[in-house]
């Protein structure tokens, strides 16, 4: 220390002010300690879009859970629970009455009214696929007094409460009426909710940093927290989300105590965090993500059902997941299109996928279908860790079965743009791509966008499938959970027979926290209520 000080004073005398200042900082000062009662978390991506209705981006939905509240929310058993409101259903199933609880206030001090909720639901219903189905049978949705909204249907819609309370992709967050009256296709520009945290707009640096402060006027429910339901008690003053492009930096920062939380640790970097006694590594989300492939029904070769089936037979979940994740503790074979661990899970028709693939049967189907060697244009993103490997493994599996594959590397945003093209693959279109979903986004036939059979009005790939639409209608009409499960089994069998998409199994991200952090709710969405930090 003395030597360093001497060196520092020599440098100062010689005019090296900045260098000496740096040395002083290096020798005399320890790193800045995190502010008391601030949790700093590194999230899976930077927050850029603030409107939770216009986008299905997970980070935007997570942000929305911080600052907005929801009428109803599902607990860890997928059971809808009251959150902002209680509800009643008329005996004929045509009238739903929601009553707002006392003490609900927006961050600008205005009380939350039923009119705010109606406007928010109307805007959400224009974007959400489940919401659109409800509004197809809606006669009226109105605020009957300050705290009561009445939803009247022209025909029963059994899963209404389930759709209203869903966790992903677009939950109906409640905003002030003046904000919710924005067109559903225009991003909102005011970010005021009635949730447990307030968004600090002045400190928002898009893609880099977002700051939340505790909303002191928030009144939590009395129940224990469970997933997005129950009491949202906030025990810290501020939560700061930062985006770190380099995960190595995030791990170093956690080890040095500069941050408190990493939402997703890359599995191959786990040994670095696990060896640190001051860090806790655990699986927060018990359900994880589903990785899957989607074919284009519009163009050869996958406009032919037999060739889609051949592609499915060629693929092996184990090969994909072992390449993508590596560590078997963090992946799970699962042939259920609704995801394993969910109420509707069923694995009918997925035997080849979960048992290593069947390239011989695939080759035989190719021959029967008279495959003419039309190349399969496979879009391969190269810039997203969780999407880089599936295309490469799938390309080889398809080649092994006899397909001619044109693997086209590109960045993910190019995939996102190009998959919207309905042109033939040779003119800028495509044949197959891969993406991932959180399980709550695929766990229900009304939420799972791959099960939309409405052709050009549906999701990329555009299957025209009247049978699946009829099954989805049966699901809506099913009177009990048992009947719903029965219909879901038929949808599973039909979806894999038609190869509406190829489920490639489930994978999990570990989260990492400092040992001074406790109370994180095990749920698909990372939330910061109930979380405590010891100074």
């Amino acid at each position, binding site marked *: 220390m003395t030597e360093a000080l001497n060196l520092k004073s020599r440098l100062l005398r010689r005019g090296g002010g900045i260098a000496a200042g740096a040395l002083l900082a290096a020798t005399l000062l320890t790193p800045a300690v995190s502010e008391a009662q601030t949790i700093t978390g590194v999230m899976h991506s930077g927050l850029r879009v603030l409107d939770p209705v216009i986008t299905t981006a997970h980070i935007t939905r997570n942000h929305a859970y911080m600052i907005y509240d929801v009428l109803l929310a599902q607990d860890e058993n997928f059971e809808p629970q009251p959150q902002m409101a209680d509800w009643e259903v008329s005996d004929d199933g045509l009238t739903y009455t929601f009553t707002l609880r006392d003490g609900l206030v927006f961050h600008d001090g205005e009380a939350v009214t039923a009119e705010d909720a109606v406007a928010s639901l109307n805007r959400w219903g224009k974007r959400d696929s489940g919401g659109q189905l409800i509004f197809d049978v809606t006669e009226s949705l109105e605020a009957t007094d300050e705290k009561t909204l009445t939803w009247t249907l022209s025909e029963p819609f059994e899963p209404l409460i389930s759709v209203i309370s869903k966790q992903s992709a677009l939950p109906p967050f409640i905003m002030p009426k003046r904000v919710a009256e924005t067109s559903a296709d225009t991003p909102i520009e005011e970010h005021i909710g009635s949730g447990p945290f307030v968004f600090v707009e002045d400190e928002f640096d898009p*893609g880099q940093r977002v700051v939340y402060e505790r909303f002191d006027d928030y009144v939590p429910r009395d129940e224990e927290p469970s997933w997005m339901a129950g009491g949202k008690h906030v025990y810290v003053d501020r939560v700061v989300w930062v985006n770190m*492009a380099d995960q190595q930096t995030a791990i170093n*920062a956690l080890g040095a105590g*500069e941050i408190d939380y990493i939402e997703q640790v890359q599995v191959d970097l786990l040994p670095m965090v696990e060896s640190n006694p001051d860090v806790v590594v655990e699986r927060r989300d018990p359900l994880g993500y589903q990785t899957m492939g989607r074919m284009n029904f519009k163009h050869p070769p996958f406009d032919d059902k037999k060739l889609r089936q051949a592609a499915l037979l060629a693929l092996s979940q184990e090969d994909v997941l072992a390449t993508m994740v590596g560590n078997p503790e963090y992946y799970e074979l699962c042939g259920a299109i609704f995801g394993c661990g969910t109420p509707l899970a069923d694995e009918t028709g997925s035997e080849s996928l979960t048992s290593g693939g069947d390239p011989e049967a695939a080759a035989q189907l190719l021959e029967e279908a008279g495959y003419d060697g039309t190349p399969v244009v496979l879009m391969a993103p190269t810039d997203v860790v969780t999407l880089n490997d599936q295309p490469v493994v799938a390309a080889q599996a398809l080649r092994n079965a006899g397909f001619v594959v044109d693997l086209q590397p590109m960045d993910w945003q190019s995939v996102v743009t190009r998959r*919207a093209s309905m042109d033939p693959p040779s003119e800028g279109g495509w044949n197959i791509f891969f993406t991932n979903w959180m399980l709550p986004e695929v766990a229900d036939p009304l939420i799972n966008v791959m099960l939309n059979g409405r052709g050009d009005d549906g999701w990329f790939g555009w299957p025209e499938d009247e049978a699946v639409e009829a099954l989805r209608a049966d699901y809506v009409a099913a009177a009990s959970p048992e009947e719903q499960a029965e219909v879901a089994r038929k949808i599973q069998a039909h979806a894999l027979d038609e190869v509406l998409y190829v489920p490639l199994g489930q994978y999990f991200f570990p989260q990492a926290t400092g040992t001074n952090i406790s109370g994180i709710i095990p749920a698909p969405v990372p939330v910061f209520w109930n979380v405590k930090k010891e100074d």
Partner: protein
Amino acid sequence: MLGYIIRRILAILPVLLIVAVIVFLMLRLSPGDPAAILAGDAATPAQIDRIRTELGLNDPLHVQFITWMGQLLQGDLGTSLISRTDVWTMIERRIDPTINIALLTIFISVMLAVPMGVIAAWKHRTWADYLVMTFSVLGFSIPVFVIGYIFISIFSLQLRWLPVQGYTAPSEDLLGFFQRAILPALTLATIYIALIARMTRASMLEVLNEDYIRTARAKGVSERDVLFRHALRNAAVPIMTIIGIGFALLIGGVVVTESVFNIPGIGRLTVDAILARDYPVIQAMILLTAGIYVLVNLLIDLSYSLIDPRIRY
């Protein structure tokens, strides 16, 4: 001189106009759709198309260009398509770390590299020269992210002297700034020290063989004055060029270093905007970078006349 400066500043305008047209066209012709990115994974093509219309991306190209130019002439860089934040505010937030770290980097580089280059030339073909050249080759050869990780490992994780990451503005906390900026600045400085030291050595070697140096020595001028007053000043023009270009490069963005040290600078802003196809942000960043290059070049040219009285404009 004043007339020259005014002419050079006016010449910036056509350069920026040409850059603006090229950037606008290249972005619109390259694949990618900000509306699809905005809408997220579960959006249908019909929903994406409606967002395109709302954002004005379905307007004819010439209409979009005229709208943008109209905004620019009023000093308005527009609004981010993705975050709906004012582009100027986004740049303002990110430019502070970039400029301050660039200045610190250049300061460290010059303070170390110029004496190193002078000594290497003065002690030509001795161990001092070889040492400087070895450092120079290493500085060029080792990727900056490796140097960054080595510094973090030593100074932050083992010695615990400095934070791993982040940035504090000097206006908020000067010591905090140095704590957080010194490692990225040193990391970046390694390559600039290598570059400037080599350039200084080469220029000095040329000058040290000149007759006026021999004359100065014959007159009995001290060796320090020979080196720093006579030789270095005459060797300074190419060194200034390198320093100026280095500064412009640093302002243009140093993505890897920003990522390794989690510095919210211009480099990451630009890369993120490109990945998200956020046209107004990309356009503004490229115009800003072009403007900085032109201005830095002007300053370099002006500095020549200060260093070398023979150069007049």
